[in-house]
């Protein structure tokens, strides 16, 4: 059957993505206009310093290809990003892959530590009334402490003990990411309704059996929901942990170096790398979620 125009227009994929594409297109146009407006005085100043005659066209072209623009045009950012990813060997200090890997390793270690801590805390809280009432308020308070403020001290203290490099950064991202997991898992472990718990009791199940056969399976959806939140938070933690410590490598270090030397395009391409990393990590967790749901017999 030939695809008619009508069928094309009502196809669910097209229907769903049209608004998104339209808005993204509008945003890109706005970005270009913004780049022209913000860089205009900069470029004009450059021409006037050289006292060279210029046309409007040259001025416009200048705003699109300035060396250190206030706002780089989208194609400059994409170009710098592609150049940073493919233009250098993955181990070269100018390669974005290299910096992403440094940040990614801290993120993953921190995420693993945070997930472990979060689940252990949730288990303790679910099994002990005293812990629930004494620990829970302090866990919430712990997130009110701006941990990023603690980052420099963490590095100083751990450096004094002899720990350097990966671990201090990971501890910061673990501290940030354990919270959503604890909250989510406490909710998940307590989600079985009283009837199900009573049934387990009539079978005289031990609390370990209740945990493995009832609490864990019913907590899995909560686990993945909070893992998705936690992984982006631990990426933020790893990036920010690189800021006050003068790290030499990593996305945070690229941001800091870019801001010191006014390399705006470098800052923007590092941001794009962070965005790619974040969406990749979320996609992986989402994939794992679907696979686990399938194994547990959910219908997709």
């Amino acid at each position: 059957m030939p695809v008619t125009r009508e069928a094309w227009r009502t196809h669910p994929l097209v229907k769903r993505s049209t608004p998104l594409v339209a808005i993204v297109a509008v945003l890109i146009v706005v970005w270009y206009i913004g780049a022209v407006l913000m860089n205009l005085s900069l470029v004009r100043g450059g021409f006037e310093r050289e006292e060279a005659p210029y046309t409007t066209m040259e001025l416009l072209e200048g705003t699109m290809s300035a060396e250190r623009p206030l706002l780089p045009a989208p194609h400059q950012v994409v170009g710098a990003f592609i150049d940073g990813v493919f233009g250098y060997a993955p181990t070269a200090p100018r390669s974005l892959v290299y910096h992403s890997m440094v940040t990614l390793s801290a993120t993953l270690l921190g995420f693993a530590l945070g997930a472990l801590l979060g689940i252990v805390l949730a288990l303790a809280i679910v099994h002990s009334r005293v812990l629930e009432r004494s620990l829970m308020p302090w866990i919430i308070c712990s997130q009110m402490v701006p941990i990023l403020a603690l980052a420099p001290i963490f590095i100083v203290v751990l450096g004094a003990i002899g720990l350097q490099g990966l671990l201090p950064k990971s501890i910061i991202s673990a501290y940030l990411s354990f919270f959503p997991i604890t909250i989510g898992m406490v909710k998940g472990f307590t989600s079985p309704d009283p009837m199900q718990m009573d049934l387990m009791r009539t079978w005289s199940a031990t609390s370990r059996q209740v945990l493995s056969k009832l609490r864990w399976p019913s907590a899995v959806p909560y686990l993945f929901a909070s893992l998705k939140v936690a992984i982006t938070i631990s990426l933020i933690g790893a990036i920010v942990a690189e800021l006050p410590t003068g790290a030499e490598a990593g996305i945070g270090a690229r941001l800091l170096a870019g801001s010191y030397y006014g390399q705006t395009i470098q800052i923007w391409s590092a941001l794009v790398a962070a965005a790619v990393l974040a969406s990749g990590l979320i996609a992986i967790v989402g994939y794992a979620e679907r696979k686990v749901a399938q194994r547990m017999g959910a219908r997709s």
Partner: protein
Amino acid sequence: MNRRQIRLGFIMSAVCVLITLMLPLPLAGTPVAALMARPLTFLLTGVIVLVFAFAAGFRGLPAIVIGLVGAGITADMTLTLLRDPLIAGDAASGFWVVVIGVWLASWISVVALAGLRPRSSIFRKAIDLAIPLLFGAAVFYLWEVVVRGAGVPPVLLPSPSAAATKFMASLPILGADFVQTFIRGVLIGYAIGCGAGLLVAILAHRFEFLGRGLLPLGNFFSALPLVGVAPIMVMWFGFDWPSKAAVVALVTFFPMLVNALAGLQAAGDIERDLMRSYGASYAQTLIKLYLPAALPFIFNALKINATLALIGAIVAEFFGTPTQGIGFRISTEAGRMALDMVWAEIALAAIAGMAFYGLVALAERVTTFWHPSMRT
């Protein structure tokens, strides 16, 4: 934990204090039975043992109160002992056994307190408040005692009392930093970001095409490490507070957009039909139906944003500030190894953050009292 275990716990605390009479307190100096050489402390030890024995003899609330009094006296005794230069930084087994006694007595009391089932609701609320407070007090006590008793160098970890002293001594500096970071950076940026997020959410709800495009975009952006734009904002808006407010506004915008949009869509079909049958205009429906229905979601975003805002402002200060602000002070003082000042700033940030969060939670309680999650 049953009554017999609680009694056993208090007896164990008393035994801990008694054992101390036979153990050395400092590593150097008087070798054995150091407590014998201090008549006042020796007398106090006897009192403490009696108090714990009393606590073991009672049941219910009296036992807990007496046990807590005993723990308090013992804790005070250890802190007094720490003033002795022989013991501070050089404490020996006898001292640590007393500390274990304090920990045991307070732990038992908290457990017993959590086991109480009082009838009156005021009493229950008081207990709910007392448990985390006692737990926190015990944690701070252990921190203080370990740092001072074991002589942890202040460069690694200052004692809470040192940080508190520094806090009180440098109130003017802390006040200026608070105004710079919190009042100017956080509050202004928070108001702009949350307000803009709410407005755009209302627009996106009014025009469905906009909403379908903005929702996935908002979800994507709220998962990004947006604090990374801090260097760009500093470049655009300068070193002073506008750049901090801009970062905060950007960081708080997307969570508010996503949550408020979900909230606006939460109004049921029946309610919407009812508004239409009344012939209500869009503005009336918005004010009387959509916004109230969205309030729980909006407050959720406000709470998430309360923590994000503080983080955003402090991170932005790492990229350049006038010589003021919490983030600025932390990074410079950490560079000078003045860790007591750093901890004082952290305490300031924590208190400000908690007060901010508490105010938002209070406002939620007042305005969304009708929601099922508020009924318990």
